[in-house]
């Protein structure tokens, strides 16, 4: 089990969403993906995608102008 860090700061639609999907594809079950970004809509849309993909949302938090989302891959 490992952690994958994704830096999507400054990236626009649909890049953060797509990068999370790519990372989830590559990750192993049990891995945690931590993505940091600034694109406002992605902060609410990444959790929607996590839900649709039936993965586990661990945390959504703000860090100044940035947001940090942590996702655990629970399904292959």
């Amino acid at each position, binding site marked *: 089990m490992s952690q994958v860090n994704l830096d999507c700061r400054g990236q*626009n639609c649909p890049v953060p*969403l*797509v990068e999370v*999907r*790519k990372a989830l594809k590559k990750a192993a079950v049990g891995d945690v993906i931590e993505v940091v970004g600034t694109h406002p809509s992605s902060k609410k849309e990444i959790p929607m995608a996590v839900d649709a993909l039936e993965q586990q949302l661990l945390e959504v938090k703000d860090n100044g102008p940035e947001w940090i989302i942590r996702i655990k891959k629970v399904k292959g």
Partner: protein
Amino acid sequence: MTQKTTIVVHSGDMDKMFSAFIIANGSMAMGMEASLYFTFWGLNRLKKGGLDKGPLSKMNMLGLGRRMVRQRMEKANVAKLEQMVKDFKELGGKIIACEMTMEIMGIKKEDLRLDWIDEFGAVGTYVNEARRSDITLFI
């Protein structure tokens, strides 16, 4: 069964290419499948070197409007179409090229980006994709 988005890419306009690939990639990011059917002017964008050569659908002004929109896109850090196609393929998206358009416009297979195209087909291929789709769009 996995949900699916099927889009007819009829327009070859630059802005509409962005719409098509953003929706397709967004669909796959949300766990769906995506299938793009390129026909008429859209097929020109699958020609070698043709991907980002489309005009702007409105206020193109002989390319001036297009250049302005491209600059604004660059400033907003919008991903390049080339990158969007790369992501599209990586996420398992399917591209179908319309054979009738090839015939009408005199486009040969070797003129096209065969590394992107999964299938050549006609309306039956499109309907077969669309009838099993949850989202269908004509762009």
